């Protein structure tokens, strides 16, 4: 039989809040039932328990912090947790909103024994700082039941497991209240009493739901499961405990997200060139920031520097309530080959420098260039992203050209003496921008060297400067 391990997270939403210290009593309240569903250690000290009304809790502790229960947050956090576990265990099934089922049997061929497997899993999971209960079982539902009760034992002995299971009361099962009530009326209140009746007998008296449940609990019926497959993209959301309106304070929570990103990329030997930051603002739309790194980076420290430069130049419309970090594309890491003996003293590679400049000044302010084969002077230089071209065309003839061109030719207004020319350029007929110009090199009386041209209409223009 297959051994399963179930992890039950009783306070997932509470644990996912960005809480730096446990000074404040924190509770998560289910808005429909108006009852407390999760509370932290400080709240517990004040005597607050799950299932209490909000009024009672507020009277026990005057500075209580209340957050509404949102199932979406738990689901998201659960998926993140599954993703985290994926690096140590293979078959993971999600039981939304707060449970994870792991197939242990297959993993035992990788780990020495159950003990070793659990140690690895436990130490890996403890990094997330989540509260959880766990239990093993020979069917998914049995493991789930024991975990929810809080058995917190990792055993593979079947007799012990069955014994544990039989002790449990029916109210911890996933059966509907009506079914439990029906069973209670015929005197069945524990699992052991329920399992004494054969499935065929149960089918005669009760509905299919109960038969299915019992069959799956004992492992007689197959339990269909969807196993978790990790996505290729990285997406994490961090709920902030306080609203942030000063962007300087964003660095700390951001570094938490970036550390997770570093772990994600490092494990896969990947780098990314672009991260997207979504700042969820109160009563406003999300503010989307894209941060680039020309070299491609995985280290959180470098991304943090780049993000801070980008964040400096933005303006918030409203305080930020939460942050999402997205990475859409990543690529394999190819380490930069560096010469051991070169004497470079600086701290950045050219690509890193470009990223830093782009982050602060904006992408359009930092330009590279490359040479095209267009004979028209305006088009022979093409602006491109820095360092994006590596080709080096060799087959151009030497032409005496000015080092600076005017953004657009201007009427020649000063007196000049022509030193060289003409050089006729009559070209560009193929794309509807033909030109016919005679270019001259000229010098002004005060010694400046200019590049001027005469059009077919005998008009003179200044086009460049031989700086």
């Amino acid at each position, binding site marked *: 039989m297959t051994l399963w391990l179930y992890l039950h997270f009783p306070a997932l939403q509470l644990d996912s809040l960005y809480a730096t210290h446990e000074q404040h009593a924190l509770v998560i309240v289910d808005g429909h039932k108006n009852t407390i569903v999760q509370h932290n250690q400080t709240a517990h000290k004040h005597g607050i328990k799950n299932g209490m009304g909000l009024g009672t809790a507020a009277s026990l502790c005057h500075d209580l912090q209340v957050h509404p229960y949102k199932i979406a947050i738990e689901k998201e956090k659960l998926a993140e947790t599954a993703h985290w576990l994926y690096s140590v265990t293979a078959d993971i099934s999600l039981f939304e909103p707060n449970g994870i089922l792991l197939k242990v049997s297959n993993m035992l061929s990788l780990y020495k024994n159950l003990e070793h497997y659990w140690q690895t899993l436990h130490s890996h999971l403890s990094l997330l700082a989540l509260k959880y209960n766990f239990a093993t079982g020979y069917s998914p539902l049995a493991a789930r039941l024991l975990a929810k009760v809080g058995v917190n034992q990792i055993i593979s002995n079947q007799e012990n497991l069955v014994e544990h299971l039989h002790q449990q009361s029916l109210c911890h099962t996933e059966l509907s209240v009506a079914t439990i009530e029906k069973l209670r009326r015929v005197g069945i209140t524990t699992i052991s009493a329920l399992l004494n009746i054969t499935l065929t007998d149960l089918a005669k008296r009760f509905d299919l739901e109960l038969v299915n449940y019992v069959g799956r609990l004992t492992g007689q019926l197959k339990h269909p499961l969807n196993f978790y497959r990790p996505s290729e993209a990285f997406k994490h959301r961090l709920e902030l405990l306080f609203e942030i309106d000063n962007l300087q304070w964003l660095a700390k929570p951001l570094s938490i997200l970036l550390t997770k990103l570093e772990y994600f990329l490092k494990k896969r030997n990947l780098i990314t060139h672009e991260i997207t930051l979504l700042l969820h603002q109160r009563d406003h739309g999300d503010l989307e920031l894209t941060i680039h790194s020309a070299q491609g980076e995985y280290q959180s420290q470098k991304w943090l520097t780049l993000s801070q430069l980008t964040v400096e130049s933005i303006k918030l419309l409203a305080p930020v309530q939460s942050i999402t970090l997205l990475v859409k594309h990543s690529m394999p890491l190819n380490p930069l080959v560096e010469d051991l003996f070169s*004497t*470079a*003293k*600086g*701290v*950045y*590679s*050219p690509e*890193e*420098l*470009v990223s*830093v*400049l782009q982050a*602060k*000044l*904006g992408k359009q*302010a*930092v*330009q*590279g*260039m*490359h*040479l095209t084969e267009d004979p028209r*002077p305006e088009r*022979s*230089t*093409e602006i491109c992203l820095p*360092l994006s*071209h*590596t*080709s*080096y065309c060799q087959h*151009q003839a*030497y*032409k*005496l*050209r*000015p*080092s*600076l*061109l*005017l*953004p657009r030719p201007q009427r020649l207004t000063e007196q000049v*003496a*022509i*030193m*060289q020319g003409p050089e006729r350029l009559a070209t560009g007929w193929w794309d509807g921008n033909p030109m016919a110009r005679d270019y001259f*090199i000229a*010098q*002004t009386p*005060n*010694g*400046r*060297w*200019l590049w001027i041209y005469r059009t077919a209409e*005998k008009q003179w223009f200044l086009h*460049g*400067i*031989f*700086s």
Partner: protein
Amino acid sequence: MDKIIERLQNQRLLWRGTERKMAIEVTTSGYPELDHKLQGGLPQSGVVEINTPIGIGEIRLLIPYIKQAINTRLLVFIAPPGIINAEHFFAQGLNVNQIITIHPNSHQEGLWAAEQCLKSGACHALLHWHQALEVHHIKRFQIAAETGNCLHFLFKEKSQYSLSLPVSLSMKLSPHHAGISIDIPKRKGGWPISNFTVDMSTHWPALTRAKTANSVVAFPSIRTR
């Protein structure tokens, strides 16, 4: 008497003739006259201030120097007074892919970008057009340039009021028929040098004039058929 000398010395108001300056590492500028006057060439790192009108050959003066390392490190232009023409730099044998142009939105951003480039170690030379720099800017640039082993050329158009800045080398350029006439009012580890001419006719034969003044070609009159 000794006390006064000691005090002046502590306040760094006294200069001793016997004090030996550390030799500044220099690289050839590619122009023999300039190398001779500067005892070897341009410094390898630091800030070089160039007071010049635009268009007399101020970039051309630096091309042979820039050429020496452009294929391994970057050449950066900050706020140039026009579009950098790739054809020109390609014709000089530079790898245009290694050229980066920065158009900052403000002077402040330009200063920041210059400092980043200088200290990065990824740049060989930085050509920066800026009119109003102050002493503390130059001091920061000097430190950054030494960290990154980069030479920072600061271009300014001639201004009446010239403040003495703590630069490694300050040059005043003026046009000359054979090339450029240079005046060096200030340099580290040496005396000021008054006007001398750099002959550009070997590098730029088409952009110099022969000495005879009447070789100027008259403006061609429009021929009528």
